[in-house]
């Protein structure tokens, strides 16, 4: 989880946080702070799908999963656990 949080923070910092004076907390809303918009969310979704090999369903593109560094990290961890469990079951 810590590793995921680090990767997500790095991705967001590199791609969206152009203003270095902004300090983004792990719980801060990416939308409310103006860090990300709809274009950014699509980029984030593509990054997560490519990096972690998981499929994000349209219904899952919601703030509860993707609107803060913590939410994103937790969501990815859960998806990966589910993926591992599914593989084991098969």
């Amino acid at each position, binding site marked *: 989880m810590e590793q995921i949080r680090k990767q997500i923070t790095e991705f967001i910092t590199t791609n969206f946080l152009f203003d270095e004076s902004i300090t983004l907390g792990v719980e801060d809303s990416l939308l409310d702070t103006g860090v990300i918009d*709809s*274009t950014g969310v*699509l980029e984030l979704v593509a990054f997560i799908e490519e990096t972690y090999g998981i499929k994000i369903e349209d219904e899952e593109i*919601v703030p509860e999963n993707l609107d803060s560094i913590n939410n994103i990290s937790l969501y990815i961890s859960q998806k990966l656990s589910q993926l591992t469990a599914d593989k084991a079951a098969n």
Partner: protein
Amino acid sequence: MIPIKPIDLSVDLVHHFLERSARFYPDKVAIVHGKARVAYSEINTRADNLARHFLSHGVQKGDRIALLMENCVEYVISYYAIMKAGAVAVPLNSDLKPEGLRYAINDLEAKILIFGSRFDKLISSSDLDAFGLTHLIRKGPLSSLGDVVSFDAVSRFSSGNDGHEFSTLNHELSDSDLASIIYTSGSTGGPKGVMLTHRNIVDNTFSICQYLHLTEKDIQMCVLPFFYVMGKSLLNTHFAVGGTIVVNNQFAFPATVLKEMIAEKVTGFSGVPSTFAYLLHRSPLAASRDKLDSLRYVTQAGGHMSKAIKEQLRRVLPSHTEIVIMYGATEAAARLSYLESSWFADKMESIGKAIPGVELIVMNEQGKEASTGEVGELVARGSNIMPGYLNKPEATSKALAGGWYHTGDQAYRDEEGFFFVVGRQDDLLKVGGHRLSPQEIEDTLMESGLFVEAVVLGMPDEFLGNKLVILAVPSNSSCTSNEVMSFCAGRLPKYKVPSEVRFAKNLPKKTSGKIDRKGCLALFAKTVAP
């Protein structure tokens, strides 16, 4: 010209929309935003309080008051309060940088700025004192910014005339006075402040209510920013009829928007082409179809949307939901034409016919009305057309030459009187000996089903003037350049076949959601060919 049917003859100023609905539907929910559900009477009372505050600060008729906020209840209160006080509401783009904000404040000679706490940093780094700004009103928790007044304090409590309804300066205001200034990005010469009178906005609002058959039962999901003329038009039309606006600033998470549309039994949804491209590509719209029982119509404006997306939208939306294609400009207070939904299947590519109160023609190079099928510039006149741009007499003369508003769009009219826009004059690309409209090629590209979005650009070329290139968001990660180029070769004449395609995860957009062609060109240059 079809005449406008006013909803109420006594309404001739923009804030009368709010005052009338507060009188007829005092307890009705006017705005839903998150957990907040605010009635017309409360919005009107708070707008009265804020207007009194303006007057106690010496605001005079015609003074410009700038607004820098995301869509919210306070935005709506501010917008109408400014006009109640006889001042001019200037909604600013929430994406402004310090230079842009300084430009606007200077151009407007504004002394008052109302803003949300999200913009604290922008305000403090913009050195606005130097531009004569003397009064800041801020929405949000206590701030470290210096001399700032709390929005809540000045809108929740009256600063005089307690117990009496605020008396707008009606006797001093006429419908030809300025109501609002909206900045529009010009292709040359910096942003232009489009000046709109009360009459411009009131007439256009009545006209839209008329052709969309809006009533107090209508509930609009608003994802477009109020600072954008289309967003502002959604607000005014629904306030004019006593309807409800559901504000949702989370369109980045479309599933959330759809969920709220279902829960609030929304009757109308409006967007620009990218709104619908996004909804169709990454949202559970198709899966939600059976739950959108109340959705009476969707409207699309803000530029040309490809036929492929329109057809897809028709397939995905519930069959009872009408699709209304609309066309307009900030200079027209929003709207100029619409395609009645009954014509959607037959004339999908058309922008329809002039709305009530508007005269629309295609003008040829000789300044005469073009004949059927002949391409020329689309020009309009009517009581909704702006009196001009702020501090830009040259641009005003050009835009309003000969008593017509020149849209800058190339169009033709068919034998049944429907207008078709073929492209923007500014976007025409000179390729070899041809002048090409990227729109036509983009439409063909979208028919391939290979893309979520695609834009055709002109890269400067020593021999051709421009060479055509594509910047596209593929619908599938396995899409290859060869696949795209062979599709083009099979569908387009040789001189219209782009020479190269590059893929991006997204196309750069303006905050209104419109494609940013300059941004696309810069991104193309940075993107590696697949």
